[in-house]
């Protein structure tokens, strides 16, 4: 079971997969020829359930391993159930008694282990090994014997030739995995990947156990292949016209029988009509966020509830009313029944989403945008009436509101710290619980050399383990998006780039033993680039001169009192430059002393182009707590940067601390369209609905509609509200024990930390927990991470939903929806619809 429990959680999120631990660096200690190393790496990568690469392929591989293991479990369980139902086993033969013995021995073994752990009985050892280990081993062996005989006999009696082939394949995979484990141990590879070092001996038994662990994956691949072949065969016969036909049927069913879209639309409009009654933002600037968040939530709730009801009801009703007879007696494939239903419901969701999106945007336009315009008008009026403080406040409010109603594209850097002595660290000062958050937040000390440094470009991961080669992170700034074509900075950027190319070529020429042909190639390149550089320099000088001329003329016009002309000329000069880089920061302040009430904490920003060495010293600014600080950096800083930049923040107020996480500072690309971004946010809800539809339809293939409905609700609630808990649960990181022990703590008012007195009740609870916890932990691999698919918070915060994120989320949704729909197909294929 441990193999399953330690699986990386792709189910949770592709990015959460375990980082790669490449064994390449230790290749010299292996006792094999170097050409074998790639094969070994592949063996390890494909067999070890906990190892993967930190990229898209790694995500796919982890998904494949998890699905394969679930396939293997399902294959074993289904043959056992068939065997028992068809009376192939369970008829009182000798092996059935062994199975019963294992069933009885398991709780006894667990009970003994619990009694040992709570010191109610002494620890008995036989030949240096715990007695409970022997009893556990006896249980495992007894189960294996019974399962082996049950499956073998059932397949022999009821299986097809392909099933026999799978049975043989599974056994070969078991042997292969065990052999691979022993071989890896013998050549020292196992010691390497276990981090034991070359001088530590790994025993053959450990190699064998590791091999069994890998066997689970390999056996899973065999069953997965069998299922994949079956599904591909089915896929070959799937026709669009039948999918369309069943989709149209589902559409009509939802519309005419359930009235679902009309009910949902009515509720949406009703809620919207009274929204402004009960939605009062805590601060005026939060209005946009509150409204966008509420409307997205409303869409999400209505659509997911609709799908949660529709999808699990469709097939059970079809089966119950026997209307399915006339469909499956046509050349309709079972997969078409599943996908057709999904298609119909998703078409409905798509239409509703577009309607909801349109209405929501109109509503936001009428409420938030009107508020922004009113606030700006009030600010202008206050300014005219010389109420400057109020004008500033109102302007700030309007700006904050506008910020939320945008689609900002942040460009993130990599954060590292300097401590008060100027020594670099991956983390700053820990002032409390902030370190355990999803994004660790740490602090810099005021009025010391301590600094937070955001590095852009291809930078080393600050969290690289000491002694290991740094893992490069690609945090390059898209320079072309900031420096507009035909501007001074753009020309300067090209000048720098060309100059660097010429310098590199000249440097290359200095190498010894360079072939003459290469030297002549480099000479030609240098000459060509030099000519181009001269042309670019001239262009750059010309642009500069034009800008200077415009500014000089503007100054003269201003002196002459021609203000409009002066403004126009200044505008012409501005057009020749790229706009400043906008930096947004949201830091928190940790105060060691209260200081003067109302006095802000100050910070300083500096930016350096590490390639050209040009530096910009920003102004000292007051940190706006709970608000966003903005700073502007001149565009010339990016010229010649090749996407690299370093931004340093220092706290200027003594004895105070400034806290920050990596995402607290970013450069802003020109914002995108809010309406479009809102629809992209709704796409996340669409993906949730797709996964939910797959679950609902799958549940409907074998459950009656009330049970299917409850199952779908369970999956949604668990994935949306309790996913983090489930992840902790699967890692057995929940304090206070399992469900039974927690129940005891609840009743006796014991806290989570204290040890319970080992009474009979506690021992029983711990025993039951030990039995059910591993099984319950499996749920995490089935429950989709609905939270990860929901990106409406980003939209409400005014950030753009990137295409990449949408792509990743689509893959994640498909990683759940496809297996669920295929599971539904397999169940429907193997059940009698008329039974």
């Amino acid at each position, binding site marked *: 079971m441990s193999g399953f429990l330690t699986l990386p959680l792709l189910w949770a999120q592709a990015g959460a997969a375990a980082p790669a631990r490449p064994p390449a660096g230790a290749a010299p200690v292996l006792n094999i020829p170097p050409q074998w190393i790639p094969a070994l790496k592949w063996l390890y990568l494909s067999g070890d359930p906990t190892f993967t690469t930190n990229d898209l392929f790694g995500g796919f591989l982890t998904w494949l391993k998890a699905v394969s293991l679930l396939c293997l479990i399902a294959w074993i369980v289904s043959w056992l159930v068939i065997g*028992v139902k068809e009376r192939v086993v369970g008829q009182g033969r000798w092996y059935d008694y062994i199975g019963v013995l294992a069933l009885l021995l398991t709780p006894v073994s667990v009970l003994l282990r619990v009694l040992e752990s709570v010191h109610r009985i002494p620890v008995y050892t036989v030949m240096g090994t715990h007695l409970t280990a022997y009893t556990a081993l006896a249980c495992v062996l007894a189960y294996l014997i019974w399962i082996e005989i049950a499956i073998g006999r059932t397949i022999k009696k009821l299986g097809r030739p392909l099933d026999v082939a799978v049975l043989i394949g599974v056994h070969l995979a078991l042997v292969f995995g065990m052999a691979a484990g022993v071989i890896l141990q013998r050549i020292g590879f196992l010691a390497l990947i276990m981090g034991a070092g070359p001088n530590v001996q790994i025993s053959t038994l450990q190699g064998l156990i590791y091999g069994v662990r890998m066997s689970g994956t390999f056996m899973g691949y065999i069953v997965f292949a069998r299922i994949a072949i079956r599904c591909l065969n089915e896929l070959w016969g799937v026709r669009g*016209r039948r999918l369309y036909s069943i989709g*149209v049927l589902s559409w*009509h069913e939802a519309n005419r029988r359930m009235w679902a879209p009309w009910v949902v639309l009515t509720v949406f409009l009703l809620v919207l009509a009274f929204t402004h009654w009960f939605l009062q933002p805590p601060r005026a600037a939060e209005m946009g966020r509150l409204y966008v968040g509420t409307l997205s939530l409303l869409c999400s709730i209505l659509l997911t509830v609709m799908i949660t009801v529709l999808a699990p009801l469709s097939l059970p009703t079809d089966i119950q009313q026997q209307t399915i*007879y006339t*469909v499956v007696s046509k050349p309709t494939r079972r997969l078409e029944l599943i996908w057709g239903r999904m298609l119909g419901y998703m078409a409905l969701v798509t239409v509703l989403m577009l309607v909801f999106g349109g209405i929501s945007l109109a509503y936001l336009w009428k409420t938030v945008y009107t508020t922004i315009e009113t606030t700006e008008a009030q600010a202008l009026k206050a300014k005219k009436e010389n109420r400057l403080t109020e004008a500033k406040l109102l302007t700030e409010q309007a700006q904050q509101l506008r910020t939320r109603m945008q689609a900002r594209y942040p460009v993130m850097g990599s954060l590292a710290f300097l401590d008060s002595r100027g020594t670099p660290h991956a983390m700053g000062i820990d002032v409390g619980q902030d370190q355990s958050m999803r994004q660790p937040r740490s602090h810099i000390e005021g009025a010391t050399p301590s600094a937070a440094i955001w590095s852009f470009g291809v930078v080393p991961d600050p969290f690289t383990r000491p002694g290991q080669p740094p893992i490069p992170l690609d945090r390059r700034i898209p320079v072309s998006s900031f420096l507009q074509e035909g501007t001074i900075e753009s020309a300067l950027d090209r000048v720098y780039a060309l100059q660097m190319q010429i310098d590199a070529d000249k440097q290359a020429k200095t190498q010894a033993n360079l072939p003459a042909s290469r030297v002549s190639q480099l000479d030609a390149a240098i000459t060509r680039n030099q000519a181009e550089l001269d042309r670019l320099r001239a262009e750059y000088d010309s642009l500069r001169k034009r800008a200077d001329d415009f500014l000089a003329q503007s100054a003269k016009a201003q002196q002459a009192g021609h203000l409009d002309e002066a403004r126009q000329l200044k505008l012409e000069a501005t057009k020749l430059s790229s706009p400043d880089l906008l930096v947004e920061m949201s830091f928190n302040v940790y105060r060691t002393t209260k200081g003067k009430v109302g006095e802000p904490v100050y910070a300083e920003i500096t930016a350096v182009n590490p390639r050209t060495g040009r530096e910009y010293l920003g102004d000292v600014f007051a940190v706006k707590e709970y608000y966003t600080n903005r700073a502007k950096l001149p565009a010339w800083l990016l010229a010649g940067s090749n996407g690299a930049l370093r931004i340093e923040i220092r706290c200027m107020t003594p004895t105070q601390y400034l806290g920050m996480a990596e995402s607290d500072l970013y450069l802003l690309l020109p914002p995108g369209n809010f309406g479009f971004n809102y629809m992209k946010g709704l796409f996340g809800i669409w993906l949730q609905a797709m996964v939910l539809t797959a679950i609902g339809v799958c549940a409907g293939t074998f459950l009656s509609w009330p049970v299917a409905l409850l199952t779908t609700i369970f999956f949604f609630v668990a994935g949306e509200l309790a996913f983090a808990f489930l992840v902790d649960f699967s890692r057995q990181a929940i304090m206070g024990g399992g469900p039974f022990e927690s129940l005891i703590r609840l009743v006796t008012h014991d806290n989570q930390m204290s040890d319970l007195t080992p009474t009979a009740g506690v021992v029983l609870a711990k025993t039951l927990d030990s039995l059910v916890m591993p099984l319950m932990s499996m749920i995490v691999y089935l429950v989709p991470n609905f939270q990860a698919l929901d990106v409406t918070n980003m939209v409400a915060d005014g950030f753009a939903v990137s295409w990449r994120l949408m792509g990743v989320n689509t893959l994640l949704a498909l990683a759940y929806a496809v297996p669920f729909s295929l599971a539904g197909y397999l169940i429907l294929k193997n059940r009698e619809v008329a039974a």
Partner: protein
Amino acid sequence: MSHEVIIETRNLTKVYRDFWGRPKVQALKALDLRIHRGEIFGLLGPNGSGKTTTIKLLLGLLFPTDGEALIFNEPTTNVAKNERIGYLPEESYLYKFLNAEETLHFYGRLFKISAAERTKRVAHLIDLVGLSGAKHRQLREYSKGMQRRIGLAQALINNPELILLDEPTSGLDPIGTSEIKSLILEQREQGKTIVLSGHLLADMQDICDRIAILHRGELKELGKVSDLLTVQDVTQIKARNLTPNAIAEIQDVIRRHGGENMSVDHPTTTLEELFLRIVQESELHPGRRKVAEDAARDQAVLAKR
């Protein structure tokens, strides 16, 4: 009728089990059948005899406990064979929220039929089953007879080679029954194979070439209808306008040749034939007619006077 076997069952057995896999009912016991192309084959038997189970097994809606069934020489699990099959279930298991046209288009799209051809067939079938006036009404508004008609239309949407009809005349009035029977005979004329189940003996007798009689899942009789209904040891002589003397002479001849159990009476028609004749006459000559009981009452009144 050709000798090509369209349906073949070998030792086909079905046992319904409970949740725990214990046998509950043996619905079909070792059924062996061979049905040929172009024949109308009837599955006859009382309720619970296994007729519907047989049809469901043939369609793959149920899996056999033992034995096997082949349709077009292919196993019943092969979905592709359904392109050539039409099926009318026992009840009209149709989507009540669709109208007749939508229903036929829905089922039509499941087959490899072009859109133009499908539209043509839908119109033709709606006309054929007499639902032209109600084609835009949802099926939930249909009477049981109308539902059977649209059910039959959906079974014919793909112009199937094999038509499986489970109690096709159930819920229909005599006229509807007669029309359906005519339709079935028409389909046979077109070379199609028809398997129908039912317990209305007269209906089966009228149209089936061969029948199988099932009882409690067992095949009790199988053969041509004419062969099964012929009473081999009885000879029937029919004549018109015989005088009593002539009848007496005939009886004498029969007695002389060792005949026995002789009965002399007037032949009767079937109720169905009578009903149809009356309806047809009524359509030709509308208005109230004197019925048999009226005539008897008139005679009684006259006798009293």
